[in-house]
């Protein structure tokens, strides 16, 4: 099959091989044919640039929600050799540890529905979204250091914010090892202090959802999920702290490419040896940003619990608000596959280990999925799967197609109450600007990368 001048060969169900017309590693794409057809040419060009990076330990994988990014497409997974491998900050992404978190309430749709607008309005008040709003957590540089180096553990045990039982339900227990605050710039520190406990903007959101469909009764029951239950989903990351760290190290890496005789096709893919001082420093700073993001989502969860207590005037144990899981989709981590330690880069891709919950966030109009990681993913995709819907339309085009206010009214009629910091930003995130989330889930299910447990329909949303 030929798409955008690239030849593809079908290997298995929802798995394609990009025909090799270059000297790099193989590229596999997990997607149903209709999703493949929607991928822009730039996706294939960028994937080919990734496959030509030095130090790769094996193939490059693209997920069904892949779309063009910078350097690497969003939806890319690859592994670097532990010793001779390279680290590429741009292939982790600006928003280090951008990720998803799913929280369950004990409440049903019927119980929440009469209070929905009040609930969403108060969530918007308690959890700053968009530009120019500070979070409730006022911290100094020393506290930021502890957050960055110790992660969620510090927030819960030292600051008393969050629940101890949450820790077990966060990827890496909310702390990526090796974080060293001395590798973080003053600019990143300033951006971090001003943005902790905030949601951000763009495609980031906090959503109130209803359990619409259950695919796997056994696992749903095991995780405490039932029909018509109200759940909360958070999508956000390390805010300006992570963005600044990525920008800082891209600048440093680019300056030293010649020192290590690295040739790249895109400046955004600047990479240096993992064991170089710069490589090590980036990994230490990246871990700081990843921990910041885990803390950010835990702090937001703390606010969500307060809002629910306030609105429903019930004890928190009656309301639930327990964490199902918190998982990153922009990160580099040392993991072991087939007995070999490698540095996995996941940019817009979620870890999918056997029996691990996988959260795939859809557009604000179409809903989201909870899935389960599989053993097959370990063999096929370095234990990775998709992360979301993936855009198919530019932000400008989405805004030309619908006005933010009209979209807001349309969604309200459909039973989704939105509180947004910007109508313009809302229009950019319209459902039609994204791929069909169900096709993404079908793709990863057919490819064996993760199995669906439940589908959640949005009923309330706060956005930046």
């Amino acid at each position, binding site marked *: 099959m030929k798409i955008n001048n690239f030849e593809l060969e079908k290997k298995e169900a929802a798995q394609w091989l990009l025909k090799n017309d270059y000297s790099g590693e193989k590229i596999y794409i997990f997607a149903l044919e209709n999703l493949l057809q929607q991928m822009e040419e730039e996706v294939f060009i960028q994937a080919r640039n990734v496959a030509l990076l030095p130090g790769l330990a094996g193939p490059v994988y693209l997920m069904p929600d892949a779309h063009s990014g*910078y350097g690497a497409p969003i939806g890319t997974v690859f592994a670097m050799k532990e010793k001779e491998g390279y680290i590429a900050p741009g292939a982790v992404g600006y928003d280090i540890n951008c990720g998803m978190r799913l929280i369950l309430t004990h409440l049903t749709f019927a119980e929440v529905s009469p209070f929905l607008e009040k609930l969403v309005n108060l969530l918007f008040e308690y959890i700053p979204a968009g530009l120019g709003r500070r979070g409730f957590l006022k911290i100094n540089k020393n506290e930021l250091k502890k957050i960055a180096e110790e992660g969620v553990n510090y927030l819960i045990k030292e600051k008393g914010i969050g629940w101890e039982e949450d820790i077990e339900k966060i990827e890496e227990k909310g702390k990526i090892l090796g974080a060293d605050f001395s590798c973080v710039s003053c600019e990143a520190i300033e951006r971090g202090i001003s943005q902790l406990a905030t949601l*951000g903007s763009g495609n980031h959101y906090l959503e109130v959802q209803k359990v619409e469909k259950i695919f796997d009764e056994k696992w749903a029951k095991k995780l405490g999920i039932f029909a018509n239950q109200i759940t909360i989903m958070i999508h956000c990351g390390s805010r*300006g702290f992570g963005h600044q760290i990525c920008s800082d190290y891209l600048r440093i890496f680019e300056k030293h490419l010649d020192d290590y005789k690295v040739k790249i096709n895109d400046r955004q893919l600047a990479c240096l040896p993992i064991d170089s001082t710069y490589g090590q420093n980036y990994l230490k700073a990246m871990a700081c940003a990843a921990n910041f993001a885990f803390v950010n989502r835990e702090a937001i969860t703390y606010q969500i619990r307060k809002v629910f207590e306030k609105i429903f005037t019930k004890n928190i144990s009656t309301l639930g608000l327990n964490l199902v899981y918190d998982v990153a989709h922009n990160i580099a981590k040392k993991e072991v596959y087939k007995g070999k330690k490698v540095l996995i880069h996941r940019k817009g891709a979620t870890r999918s280990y056997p029996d691990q919950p996988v959260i795939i966030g859809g557009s604000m109009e179409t809903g989201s999925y909870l899935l389960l990681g599989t053993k097959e993913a370990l063999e096929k995709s370095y234990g990775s799967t998709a992360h979301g819907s993936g855009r198919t339309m530019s932000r400008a085009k989405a805004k030309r197609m619908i006005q933010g206010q009209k979209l807001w009214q349309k969604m309200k009629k459909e039973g989704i109450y939105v509180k947004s910091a910007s109508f*313009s*930003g809302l229009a950019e995130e319209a459902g039609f600007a994204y791929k069909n989330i169900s096709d993404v889930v079908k793709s990863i299910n057919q490819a064996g990368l993760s199995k669906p447990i439940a589908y959640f329909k949005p009923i309330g949303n706060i956005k930046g």
Partner: protein
Amino acid sequence: MKRWQVFDKENIADIKLAVFGRTKKELLQNLIQAFTETVSAIKKVNKKEVIKDLKVKGENFPEVVFNFIEKLIFLKDAKFFLAKDGIFKFKNSELTFSLLGQTITKDLPIKTDIKALAKHKFQVKKEKNYYKVSLVFDI
């Protein structure tokens, strides 16, 4: 002459722009305008505050421009400041500048946030009688 142009068929998750200027100073001025218009509405931003003695360095003009834009992002996030205008002074590969603008307040319309400037596709070109910067903002 166009001050800037948005390309909406590329980098669909973000924003690709080309910004123009007949001189280096005009180019920086238009970069401020394009930046602030992307985030808010330039007409609504007031020049009521000044940040003086800002500096960026670079090995060449494109690097100075890149670092200048990164400074605008930093000031927006860390100081909640949006610029409307600038006063620039070049000395070799160092740019000293002051920014006029305002702190982001609730009454300022917000369209979107610029979180980073990508290295990907970033280019500064000197044409016959103008400068052109091609850039992608991470949104």
